[in-house]
């Protein structure tokens, strides 16, 4: 069986007026730019309450680093009280969305995703040796973990900037 090493989840919350279409497109584009295979297994609209409808989107994306390692990314959008409004911005009418939004970004590194090593007992011993002695958990595996971790922060930075949050910018942008 493959082994997953999770990276730490991050949460972005915003209540106010946002450009939901733009956010969707920009974040979706990020996966394309970083060569991730993208899919959206869940896209739900619920009637919600009098305050507005509810949306739920779940994204899954992955990228194969080599025959042994794969990056998995999961993004959860929970949006409540969604109401479309028209705003005049720079003299032009723009359609924006008033809502409460919660964005969760999560991911993991999947080792031996092709299950090459799990077929026999000997394979499992090799898997353990490969991770501890050859890839040396601290050196190579930690580098992969780091790469995925800082990739996710780039995605989070894009979301924060698109949502026009005060916590803009990323001092770690040149890491990976």
């Amino acid at each position: 069986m493959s082994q997953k090493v999770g990276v730490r989840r991050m949460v972005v919350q915003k209540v106010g007026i946002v450009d939901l279409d733009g956010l969707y497109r920009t974040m979706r584009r990020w996966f394309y730019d970083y060569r991730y295979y993208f899919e959206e297994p869940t896209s739900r609209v619920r009637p919600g309450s009098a305050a507005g409808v509810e949306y739920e989107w779940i994204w899954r994306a992955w990228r194969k680093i080599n025959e042994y390692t794969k990056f998995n990314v999961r993004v959860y959008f929970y949006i409540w009280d969604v109401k479309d409004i028209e705003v005049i911005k720079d003299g032009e009418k723009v359609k924006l969305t008033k809502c409460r939004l919660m964005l969760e970004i999560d991911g993991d590194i999947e080792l031996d995703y092709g299950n090459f090593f799990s077929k026999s007992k000997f394979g499992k011993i090799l898997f353990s040796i490969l991770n501890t002695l050859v890839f040396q958990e601290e050196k190579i595996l930690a580098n992969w973990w780091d790469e995925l971790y800082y990739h996710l922060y780039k995605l989070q930075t894009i979301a924060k900037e698109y949502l026009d949050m005060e916590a803009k910018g990323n001092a770690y942008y040149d890491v990976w």
Partner: protein
Amino acid sequence: MAEREIVIDKMRLSYEGLFNVTELYKLMDGWFRQKGYDKREKKMSESVTKNGKFIEWELEPWKKITDYAKIIIRLRVIMTDIKEVDVELDNTKIKMNQGKADFIFDGILETDYENRWENKPLFFFLRTLFDKYIFKPYTAGYQSNTIDDVNDLHNRIKTFLNLYRYSDVAWTKPSGTWPPEGMA
């Protein structure tokens, strides 16, 4: 489980007045990067209320000092009633924010974060002995590093907020009370 020692417990800083929220964030983010901390933003929240924006950040960056010990700074920032205002400075209008900001700092020293010394009872026993009698000077050094880093960040933010300029009141020993002696 790794052992977490809270070296600085809930050190606080409050401010009310003019400041720039984005610049404050950049200052903290840049400081963590400069000091070799890994980024960790647990929660970034922002909502619009009647009296202005409510902003909440939960940051928990960490720095590995050795294979055995790492420093974690837990910082919670709560900003309320944040409004955007235009301020005239040297005949030029600049945009700033006005509101209240509260900072809560925790300095944590985590030892054996890879759980290497907890697999067997004998290892655990040895680790406790080593920690108590052999590694004590090292652990004390790590604690003082944690205190120094939290103090430095605290001072940077204070300076940014123009409360004090390089204040001589610093946190010098682990304590569970606030304010420290001599500051009240």
